[in-house]
């Protein structure tokens, strides 16, 4: 194990800066495609944070699902935002100020809370993490209802969330289906080919 502590800190700062920076970039970019790109970078950096925190499976999931999901967002952004009028979807300066004020207050509050609790500020110290820290097998077993460390199994939530996903998929497909117009057989939505 060659990842020294300061290296971990360095990488943490790297990923944290990337993710926070690009999140703010998402916030301040008017172009939707740029937003999506920045978002992907930001989320990728968050995945890096996950890896750093030892949650490699969650990190991989983050990469796979969020990046995939954002990809689709990107596609939709391209599809649904015509180039000529996205410029006009501008937010007024007053709203920006208000947003920044509220957001800043919230951020300050959250940051203060994060560093307020002593238990959260005490580092792990010299206690080294477990040698074989693979979480994948344990997560897999937990999802199939087996917890080796004595916690609760997650079989039922897993099944429920599977059903949830299925229902959502069907529902989304139904919502987004091409509606046929009364006169012709062609779907109304031809944006895909524009």
């Amino acid at each position, binding site marked *: 194990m060659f990842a020294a502590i300061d*290296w971990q800190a360095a990488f943490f700062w790297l990923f944290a800066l990337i993710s926070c920076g690009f999140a703010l970039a998402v916030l301040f970019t008017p172009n939707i495609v740029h937003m999506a790109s920045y978002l992907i970078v930001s989320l990728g950096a968050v995945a890096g944070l996950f890896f750093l925190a030892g949650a490699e499976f969650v990190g991989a999931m983050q*990469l*796979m699902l969020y990046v995939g999901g954002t990809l*689709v967002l990107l596609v939709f952004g*391209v599809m649904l935002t015509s180039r000529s009028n996205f410029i006009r979807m501008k937010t007024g300066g007053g709203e920006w100020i208000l947003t920044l004020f509220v957001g800043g207050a919230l951020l300050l509050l959250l940051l203060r809370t994060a560093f307020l609790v002593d238990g959260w500020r005490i580092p792990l110290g010299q206690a080294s993490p477990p040698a074989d820290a693979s979480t994948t*097998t344990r997560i897999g*077993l937990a999802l199939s209802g087996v917890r080796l460390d004595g916690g609760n199994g997650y079989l039922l939530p897993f099944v429920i969330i599977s059903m949830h996903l299925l229902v959502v998929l069907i529902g989304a497909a139904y919502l987004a289906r091409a509606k046929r117009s009364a006169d012709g057989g062609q779907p109304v939505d031809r944006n895909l080919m524009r």
Partner: protein
Amino acid sequence: MAEFFDTSLHLPTWLACLLAALVHCGLILSLVGTGAAVFIWMERKVAGRIQDRLGPTRTGGRFGWLQSPADGLKLLTKEDLVPGSADAMLFRVAPYVSFTASFTPFLALPFADGWVAQHLHTGVFFVLAVLSLEVFGVILAGYASGSKWSLFGAMRESAQVVSYEVPLKLCVVIPVLLCGTLDLIAIGNMQAGWMSNWLVFHDPFTFLAFWIYFTCGVASVNRAPFDLAEAESELVAGFHTEYSGLRWGFFFMAEYGSMFLVSCLCSVLFLGGWHGPIPLFDLLGWSYGQEETVFRLTGYLANLAGCVNLILKGVLGVTVMIWVRWTLPRLRIDQVMTTCLKYCVPLAAICFVGVLSWQLLGLRGPNDLIPVAPRGVAGVREGWVRKAEAAERQAQGERTAAAGRRVAARSEKVGG
């Protein structure tokens, strides 16, 4: 490697790690970059042969083997054009995204037992996740070009890739299921032994799943007959219409890199990875044991041979892709989607259920017919669970020592 730098050369740890990382990156880049160049040359030659031509013959001697470096040189010297209506930043970034996405997975791809840049427990997952980012670059390129052709190509690409990821991942889950791990090294090692132990021959369903995987792999890297994103007969050149020079080259490097990656992943998952059809080094006893960590020359040789083995298998896969490209006509977009959603997805699902049933019923595969099977697949998953349990207990023990009473009580409960 990092240990080597750290302990043998007495470098600072950070420098050792950096050096090790650089070495790994260099190796992979050179390997894949060279590979890409070779593949481009090979593609031309194979295409020529299939079309009853000779292909490149002039540059660099008889076989035209300097054709690819020459092309590279030409591309390097070209002007870096950005169209006026393009989104300049994204237009510039897009090729790198693609390139990065196709090369990064090699970090987690083992070339032999332990020969991996970064050993990840979720190797399969990582490879697939990063590989799926490649399409991101394509879409960015298509969008940023500010051209209709490019946008069309990008849209087609996204639709196709997103769709084909479903059957592809379903097929990938099958070896994962059989082996009980996402660790590529473990998956490869479980296929040691005779050729019959390769997962592709495990049962009829894995055999079918292999072919589906390969088909979907071809589609997910946008190779013919699924290369609708480029579709030069319709879209000029698809998403990279507006690109030229080095950036265009990056796209091609990315494409061939992904082809190679998909083929290598296919080898590791289905075709025994770095293990040859005959377990020569196992029989010789040269191979490293399961828990063996000390360096041995014989073990090194065995791994080297395994690395060559895997690369050969990858090249074989790429060759098949090239062959297919110049043999089959391009599909229409609706045919592409039909192939995916109406054939590949159901078949993959059937394979998944079939493999599951095969395992549950305890049916025998070809490997069971061979009396001498050094390290079989059967019962591996249970073994892994036991191993994980043991690891967990160990971890629990350490945690008990470190942490308070609450965790200790929990540990006792597990022990009881």
